[in-house]
């Protein structure tokens, strides 16, 4: 009964879902305040006005003037986000026909359907920046835009579906909750919607692992193995360390990003430790321990050379994922053409009746 994900009672101001609710309230409140009264005239200082809107924590909307670099970086980020949702259907889709029970299968289907929906919301948000979805899809298929490195890892067992929900969707939520306050209105609104649905994914993944970890020894070993394989790729999802992150400083100044890669990664580690204890599973890091001075966990950084290799196309499944996506696009061409031809025919018939 995931209709509950949308009720406020589900998150009484606490947890990540509570933060999403708070971001939504802040967005409403910023809209109520309205813009400064003196909107820029034809020869006003547009850059100054843009800076004032950002400073006032208000939203930039599609028809507002914005620096070309702001537009470009948003297109890059939102498109990559959208592509990730679409490619991300593959590793989990791999287990739909093999899910261990009808209930698990139905839940997995609903989840993959959500991912498709998230891709569509995000493409729609990217389109408000003046680029078409067809163009973005073309850039993906030609390998000129990226998707999240995580989806280049294989799903080898059923437990991987649980690990993806808990760790991968968990990392995505930690990343996306601050984006609910992003300065670009359409992106912030899409993120609010996406985060509410992601929390269902994270919880269902956690439940899969919890069930396995408290099942037979074989099931528990399978759960532990999947956590061992997904832990570091999930940490790498937050991107390169702050010192090496090319877009971070500017994105933070523009309030597209609200926290650095390393801050979010730390937040994720701190969350996962307690959750792993309740699962009765261990995180594969011998140096993971509480640091009283920092009030945070010390942990071993992921292998960033591996991350760069995966981003460059040399991960375990890069070729398979892209081949699959390209094949679906090519083999579906005749269906798209048929739908367009049918729509044109129907429109013509309507015109005749009207005449």
């Amino acid at each position: 009964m995931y209709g509950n994900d949308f009720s406020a009672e589900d998150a009484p101001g606490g947890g990540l879902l509570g933060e999403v609710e708070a971001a939504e309230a802040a967005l409403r409140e910023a809209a109520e305040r309205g813009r400064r009264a003196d909107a820029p005239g034809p020869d006003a200082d547009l850059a100054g006005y843009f800076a004032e809107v950002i400073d006032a924590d208000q939203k930039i909307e599609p028809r507002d003037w914005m620096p070309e670099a702001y537009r470009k970086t948003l297109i890059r980020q939102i498109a990559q986000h959208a592509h990730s949702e679409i490619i991300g259907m593959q590793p989990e889709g791999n287990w739909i026909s093999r899910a261990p029970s009808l209930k698990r299968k139905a839940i997995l289907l609903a989840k993959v359907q959500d991912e498709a929906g998230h891709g569509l919301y995000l493409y729609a948000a990217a389109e408000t920046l003046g680029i078409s979805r067809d163009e973005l899809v073309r850039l993906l298929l030609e390998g000129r835009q990226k998707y999240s490195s995580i989806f280049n890892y294989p799903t080898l067992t059923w437990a991987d579906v649980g690990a993806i929900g808990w760790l991968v969707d968990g990392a995505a939520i930690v990343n996306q909750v601050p984006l609910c306050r992003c300065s670009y209105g359409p992106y912030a609104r899409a993120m609010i919607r996406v985060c509410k649905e992601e929390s269902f994914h994270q919880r269902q993944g956690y439940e899969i692992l919890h069930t396995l970890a408290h099942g037979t020894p074989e099931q528990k070993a399978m759960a532990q193995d999947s956590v061992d394989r997904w832990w570091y790729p999930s940490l790498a999802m937050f991107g390169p360390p702050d010192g090496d992150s090319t877009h971070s400083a500017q994105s933070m100044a523009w309030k597209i990003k609200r926290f650095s890669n390393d801050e979010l990664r730390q937040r994720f580690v701190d969350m996962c430790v307690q959750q792993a204890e309740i699962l009765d599973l261990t995180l594969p890091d011998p140096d993971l321990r509480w640091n009283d001075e920092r009030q945070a966990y010390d942990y071993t950084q992921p292998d960033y050379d591996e991350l760069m290799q995966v981003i460059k196309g040399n991960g375990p499944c890069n070729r398979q994922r892209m081949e699959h996506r390209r094949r679906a696009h090519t083999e579906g061409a005749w269906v798209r053409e048929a739908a367009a031809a049918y729509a044109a025919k129907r429109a013509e018939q309507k015109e005749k009746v009207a005449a």
Partner: protein
Amino acid sequence: MSERSERTDRLSVTEHSPLWEVFVRARRGLSHTHVGSLHAPDAELALRNARDLYTRRQEGVSIWVVPAAAITASSPDEKDAFFDPAADKVYRHPTFYDVPDGVSHL
């Protein structure tokens, strides 16, 4: 989600699947609210996709889809001039009028 209709000037119109804006009414008695947009070859498919995409979790009881090209939006440049009259005509608001003490049901 989508306000792309406001930006159609920047886009080519050679797509197989035009853009549709989606409005959903949450419950009886409330108004339709813009929830986003989607691409579909025709209105019927737009409606079906909107059902799947925007009302998976009992968000609504009624859906409108409108071709994005059919929407004309006001421009932010003329925002002030366009929306100004409300501010200087305070007599349009019920709070402008003094009600004598002791009057009830007014």
